[in-house]
């Protein structure tokens, strides 16, 4: 009996191989269903991680656009910011022959092979929030000028600290494209003469995980007792850092700024732990990304510089160099205006 099953098992392996071999040969678009013909807007968002309020807000923007365009909207993704899990999802979506994948990358290069395979199957790829390697996508919807984002945060902190003191950066995943671009501009801004009395002592990576960011902030405060300010350009990081600072009663003594959502930050703005922080409307970002994806699907744009497309209530947008579309400038939130927003 055992031998029977051993042979069966070996036979099964062979069977799988034969199956793959027999129906193989180049693309398999024939067996999987025809790729999107242009009017079918089956667009799926693949954020860095799915239990993240920032991306949920972007998703609601995407949903709104889907309603306006009579398309379908879905969001899938890993529960932790993992690049290899995103690859698995990209493969799943490729097999399902969706019309377009709108992705925010945990790692610009790890996703490239899978995305290129998706594009080879006729699926449109748009990146948003955090870019992938440019040849693995057609359009990148950037929330705001990366340079603006980086510099504004340093400017906010500098003003608050009177341009003196030690500061640290609490980032997300170390390979996250957007984080590294912004940090690059932050460092450049810090090298300007007016910041000569400010020192960047550490860049910490909280991986967009609340517990890690919380504990890392506590470690930062311990390791650098003279730390005056923290920049956290990630909504998960800034929320965790605010709580950590408060938990050791340093609210007001250590300045905190970065990118946060008004709802998470409201409490800390009102009690003074955070004076100002920036963001843009993630809902608009998702909305714009959906419109860009649908314009690609319908052949209205091909990703070349100078092309324009309509984005519903946001107006018309033009594609810049390298297929980048810019949403607009970042918004600065503070005590006077924070109650006007709800996300």
């Amino acid at each position: 009996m055992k031998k029977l099953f051993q042979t069966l098992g070996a036979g099964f392996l062979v069977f799988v191989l034969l199956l793959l071999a027999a129906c193989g040969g180049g693309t398999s678009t024939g067996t999987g269903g025809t790729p999107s013909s242009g009017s079918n807007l089956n667009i799926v968002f693949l954020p860095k991680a799915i239990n993240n309020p920032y991306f949920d807000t972007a998703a609601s923007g995407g949903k709104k656009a889907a309603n306006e365009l009579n398309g379908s909207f879905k969001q899938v993704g890993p529960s932790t910011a993992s690049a290899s899990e995103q690859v698995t999802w990209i493969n799943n979506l490729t097999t399902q022959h969706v019309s377009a994948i709108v992705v925010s990358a945990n790692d610009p290069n790890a996703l490239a092979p899978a995305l290129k395979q998706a594009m080879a199957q006729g699926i449109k790829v748009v990146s948003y929030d955090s870019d992938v390697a440019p040849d693995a996508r057609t359009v990148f919807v950037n929330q705001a000028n990366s340079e603006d984002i980086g510099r504004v945060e340093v400017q906010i902190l500098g003003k608050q600290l009177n341009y003196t003191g030690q500061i640290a950066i609490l980032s997300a995943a170390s390979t996250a494209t957007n984080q590294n671009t912004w940090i690059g501009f932050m460092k450049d801004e810090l090298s300007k003469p007016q910041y000569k009395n400010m020192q960047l002592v550490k860049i910490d990576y909280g991986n967009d995980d609340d517990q890690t960011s919380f504990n890392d902030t506590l470690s930062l405060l311990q390791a650098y007792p003279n730390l005056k300010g923290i920049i956290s350009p990630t909504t998960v990081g800034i929320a965790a850092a605010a709580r950590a600072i408060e938990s050791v009663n340093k609210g007001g003594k250590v300045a905190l700024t970065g990118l946060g959502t008004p709802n998470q930050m409201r409490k800390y703005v009102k009690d003074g732990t955070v004076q100002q922080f920036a963001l843009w409307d993630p809902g608009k970002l998702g909305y714009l990304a959906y419109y860009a994806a649908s314009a690609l699907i319908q052949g209205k744009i091909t990703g070349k510089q100078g092309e324009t497309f309509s984005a519903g209530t946001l107006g018309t947008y033009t594609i810049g160099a390298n297929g980048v579309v810019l949403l607009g400038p970042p918004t600065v939130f503070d005590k006077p205006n924070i109650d006007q927003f709800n996300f």
Partner: protein
Amino acid sequence: MKLLRKQLSAWSWEALLVVLLLLTIVLGNSLSPYFLTPFNFSLMVEGLVEIAIMSLSMTLIIIAGEIDLSVASVLGLASVMMGITWNAGIPLWLDIIIALAVGSLAGLVNGLLVTRLGLPSLVVTLGTLALYRGLAFVILGSQAVSDFPSAYTNFGIGDVPGTLIPWTFVLFVLLALLFIVVLHRSWIGRQIYAIGNNKEAARFAGIRVDQVKLLLSVLSGLLSALAGIVLTARISSARADNALGFELFVVTVVLLGGINIFGGRGSLVGVILALFVIGGLRNALGLINVSGDIQNIVIGTLLVFSVLGPNIAQRIQSALSRRRLAAGSAKNV
């Protein structure tokens, strides 16, 4: 009678797995029209190869009565080695050899701690799980190395020309066939089973228990490093956090495959079947966009019931036979 029951139990586990596999295929097909397509199978097996490779060596280790929880960390370490050697300009073939050597060394350390110092492998590999992963992070930090040559990445993600069979799957099939022969048809395999069944008896029978266990540990490290080389090629990215958390998955595949956690029983065929059951279920659920963690409910429940089920069945069986015996003896009175 006992021999028959033993044969029956070996027969029934693989039978159960075949049934599960068929159920999985039926379920997958009903959930998504894309499931039973060669393209899907191709992507699915491609995503399974690393776990598959690691489960081959894990099977042997568990049969021998030990466990290795550090496999995913060795994978990460090997991936990192690929990254830094490539960055240092060392040619690719040498990078691969270095990575394999590092993995084997890691396995050797595990094996020495277990055999020479007599430490329990569960705890040793728990420690090296953390140590090796930590070393990976210390070496590469949080960067990623991605500028590997296309020949390497094509191996990871490409198929044999003219077919949809991933190159990496071919590698796995070759390894699997080798392992099946070694475990089930060679004297080494018999020794491994003997050690797992009764370590002392095996030693008295002249088997060099410590040497075999040491060899298996090195093998485990070697194969984990190989899996790391494959993963790095597949996602074209050497990262310290590659394969984070995979070890529990590998153990799950092996246990579902019928390998007794206490050693001495089980077959590789079962493990391969279990691999496809788990891979197929995850793939099918992924095609209807069920999140990975919810997929795990199915996997976890399957694991528990794979042992619970036969236990309950055996209970019922013995209760019934006891009743029969009692009725029979009552008749004789």
